[in-house]
């Protein structure tokens, strides 16, 4: 594998490919803004993201980012440490690329009647670029820029259905909360900068001791930065945008935001807190273990998400809340970090985000399919769909049970590894909360399965078409969700190695 022959900057290739695709789509857009050549546009996006995926996987296999001692090619640092390409970066690029590909394919049908197709796809690709960049960002500057690069197109994408009140309302709320959050985040960055004098993560870590007198300031800064991550990952209390944004946005975008965007939010949180604020050193300065904040956030987030999801009538909104709940699960990955490790729990969170990428995207894409059919949005509207669309409903069953963490599906391992990690880290309270929430989540996931598989169909709804793109994306996501279980060995290895490298 000829990685070394390539210049170092090519380590960012996945992100670069994504941005190139976006630019290519801009070219299409500028040539013919009203083009309805959906195959070309969706195809370009899909190919672009798949190429990014392929490159990322190739890099991973080739050992980019694996420390040399483990026989890899070493972590690649770029631009004076502003970017870093290690296994975690590649891992999350994979997540982002997979989700983007699925979303692009699904949008082929979903955005059928939309006027400005090219613009839509290029926004998706730009957001994906932002997320991929987030995975590699290693300085608060690049992190902030990447964050905004992911966020700004997302605002637009959520409200892209300009004549749909829901979409606009969703976009507005998303934007307003997002703007507020990024203001808080930047303020936090400024405080951290004030305390340490640096924005590059490694440098911050090195200068923590010097911040001794500004312990409170640094603590506040860290907390405000947590706010920024919480917004991106839809964690309490910065989650308020999520239910509305996911519900109002076009379903593929909901999938995109709830899977890829969330994962990207987590990767920066992982990186910042492992690289810039190593627990021991930070605790010495700010007087408290910041993982406590994540313990609280994890418990509150998963509880709120699951409880609010339990009695929803609207499927998409249920999935939105469930997405908040899963953010809570993944937060265990940060809550479980401790001075003497946390590799297992963080690795588990990474695995969970990967599998979540398949299953949650799949679930939202099913909603997209239902919206495409126009069967309605509530559970009742979904009643008995299985008799008319068994394949898609079978896939939905897979997504739901996988989200609930029932074997033999991919969601099982990641959820239970989180559970294992929580116990290993000694967070029995979190583990208990996980049990309670898991039970509740079982209830509402099963409720959706019940609707499509068990309930009798409501009034005659006519024949349902089988849109190729949506079906392909859903089936592909389902296959990934199922296959994830037997091939979990490599997934776990990759995630745990990545976590090990970051934690150091």
């Amino acid at each position: 594998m000829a990685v070394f022959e390539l210049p170092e900057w090519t380590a960012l290739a996945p992100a670069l490919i994504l941005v190139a695709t976006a630019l290519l789509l801009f070219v299409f857009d500028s040539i013919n803004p009203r083009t309805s050549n959906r195959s070309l546009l969706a195809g370009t996006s899909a190919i672009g993201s798949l190429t990014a995926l392929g490159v990322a996987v190739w890099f991973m296999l080739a050992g980019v980012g694996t420390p040399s001692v483990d026989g890899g090619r070493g972590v690649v640092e770029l631009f004076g440490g502003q970017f870093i390409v290690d296994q975690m970066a590649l891992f999350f690029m994979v997540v982002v690329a997979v989700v983007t590909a699925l979303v692009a394919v699904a949008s082929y049908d979903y955005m059928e009647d939309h006027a400005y197709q090219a613009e839509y796809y290029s926004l998706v690709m730009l957001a994906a670029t932002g997320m991929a960049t987030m995975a590699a960002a290693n300085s608060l500057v690049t992190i902030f820029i990447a964050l905004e690069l992911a966020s700004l197109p997302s605002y637009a994408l959520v409200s892209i259905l300009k004549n749909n009140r829901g979409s606009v309302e969703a976009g507005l709320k998303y934007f307003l909360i997002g703007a507020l959050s990024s203001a808080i985040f930047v303020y936090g960055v400024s405080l951290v900068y004030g305390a340490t004098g640096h924005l590059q993560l490694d440098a911050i870590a090195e200068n923590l001791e010097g911040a001794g007198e500004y312990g409170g300031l640094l603590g506040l800064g860290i907390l405000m930065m947590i706010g920024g991550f919480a917004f991106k990952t839809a964690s309490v209390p910065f989650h308020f945008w999520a239910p509305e944004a996911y519900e109002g946005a076009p379903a593929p975008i909901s999938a995109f935001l709830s899977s890829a965007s969330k994962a990207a939010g987590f990767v920066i949180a992982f990186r910042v807190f492992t690289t810039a604020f190593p627990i021991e050193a930070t605790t010495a300065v700010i007087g408290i273990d910041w993982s406590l904040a994540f313990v609280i956030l994890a418990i509150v987030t998963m509880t709120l998400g699951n409880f609010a999801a339990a009695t929803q009538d609207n499927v998409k909104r249920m999935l939105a809340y469930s997405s908040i709940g899963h953010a809570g699960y993944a937060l265990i990955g940060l809550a479980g970090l401790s001075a003497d490790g946390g590799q297992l729990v963080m690795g588990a969170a990474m695995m969970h985000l990967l599998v979540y990428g398949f299953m949650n995207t799949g679930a939202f894409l099913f909603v997209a399919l239902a919206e495409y059919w126009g069967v309605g949005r509530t559970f009742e509207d979904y009643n008995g769909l299985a008799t008319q669309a068994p394949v898609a409903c079978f896939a939905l069953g897979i997504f739901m049970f996988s989200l609930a963490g029932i074997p033999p599906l991919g969601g099982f391992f990641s959820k239970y590894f989180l559970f294992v990690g929580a116990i290993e880290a000694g967070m029995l309270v979190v583990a208990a909360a996980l049990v309670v929430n898991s039970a509740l989540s079982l209830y509402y996931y099963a409720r959706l399965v019940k609707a499509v598989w068990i309930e009798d169909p409501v009034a005659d709804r006519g024949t349902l078409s089988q849109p190729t793109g949506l079906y392909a994306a859903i089936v592909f996501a389902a296959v990934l969700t199922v296959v994830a279980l037997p091939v979990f060995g490599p997934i776990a290895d990759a995630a745990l190695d990545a976590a090990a490298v970051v934690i150091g």
Partner: protein
Amino acid sequence: MMIEALIAVALVGALVTFIAPNRIAGKLAFAISLIPAALSLWMFTVFDGSGNALLDGELAFESQMEWIQLGDYTISWFVGLDGISLPLVVLTTVLTTLAIMSSWTPIDDRESQFYGLLLFIEANLIGVFTALDFFVWFIFWEAVLIPMYLLIGVWGGPRRKYAAIKFFVYTNVASLLMFGAFITLVFGLGDAVTSFALPEVASAMLDGGPEGFLGVGGSTLASIVFVAMFLGFAVKVPIVPFHTWLPDAHVEAPTPASVLLAGVLLKMGTYALLRFNFTMFPEQVEAYAIPIAAIAVISVIYGAMLALAQTDLKRIVAYSSVSSMGYVILGLIAYTQFGVGGATFQMVSHGLISGLMFMAVGVIYNATHTRMVTDMSGMADRMPVAVGILVAGAFGYMGLPLMSGFFGEFTIFFGAFGAEQLPYSELFTPLAMFGIVIVAGYLLFALQRTVFGPYHLETDYEVGRAPLHDVAPMFVLLGIIILLGVAPELIFEMITDAVDPILENGGEL
């Protein structure tokens, strides 16, 4: 690779059946299910294992392969059979085949999905009884939930949605509790274990036990884990007061699902208790002998009393399962060869008999479309063969000698009566034994009112003789029940061979 073949046949069969046309699904599934049944019977005849799978026994059909490296721990695909698991595997395969045949009449909607799910359950159940790595085992253990949820939910009775979700959530919560407890134990064992393989954990447990975890001392930790796992399994078994999901699930489930639920799924709980609590925690078993025995007695008597109050045939059989599982717990806590061996035998026996009972009730339901005791009488007049088998099954349930139930109960009682491990065993045992009187009471009451007396039916259906394919599975079951009642050593020998090593560590041998 025979075990993998068993599971694979069932899994592939499930998929094939799933996409087969409804018309042929039943026959196809039956044909497919014959393969694992035959295979497992063949394995039964050539079985050459000895000892206990967790305690350095010679495993039959062992196979092991690394799967996932989770930090310091390895998760392996690890399966194998010993004298405890083999009878249960055979029970599973045979009962599935028969359950499939008994579904031909009642299931007339979405057949291919139904039979596909049955085969899927079979695959998972085989996995539960053969897996020897905790994670592998847990995967199968939990994967049973999905098909059972759907079987109850889609093809069940009027309150099927409530019953299905109750079953699903309740048992899952219990599993989570148990999972957490076991993982805590593994961490508590520290460096002594490097994998989740049950034999390794078991030997570490018996070799000094946990060193402690999270500031909790080793023996306290072991006790906490023991109790938590016991509670987790108690729901699955189910043991009073965690039993309320069972009657709902049974009553609402379609007959073949009830057959598997009572026949095999409940045994998952007792099997797990035997494999985990009673194999790995001899000291705790001793320490908690009295409360557990008390729970067992309460389960027997309370379950039987509840059955007495029911008027729905299926509910009667469902509650009687609670009662019967109480016997199993009593046998386990006795911690003697006859107690534990009898409990294991009783798992198989109860599987056969309750399966038979549910089938028989199902046949009556197929004809009458009611299960209420008050709605019918004199069924023997119209369906003599089916009723004959029902009566035979009922007497089997009451523990009639020369049927397998008697052997199971007798050995449990005998094993428990003289158990030195269990204080007051000579009081607990007679108390629990009173169940055999109550069981006779409610079953005879039910029989008297439904199958005997002048013919009468509240519902508007013409009742005729049951078709052969409804009766044939019951005949087969009855045959096995009598065979095991007359020649229990067929499986009891291999069971005791596998049970002995457990008792060497703490029980009485």
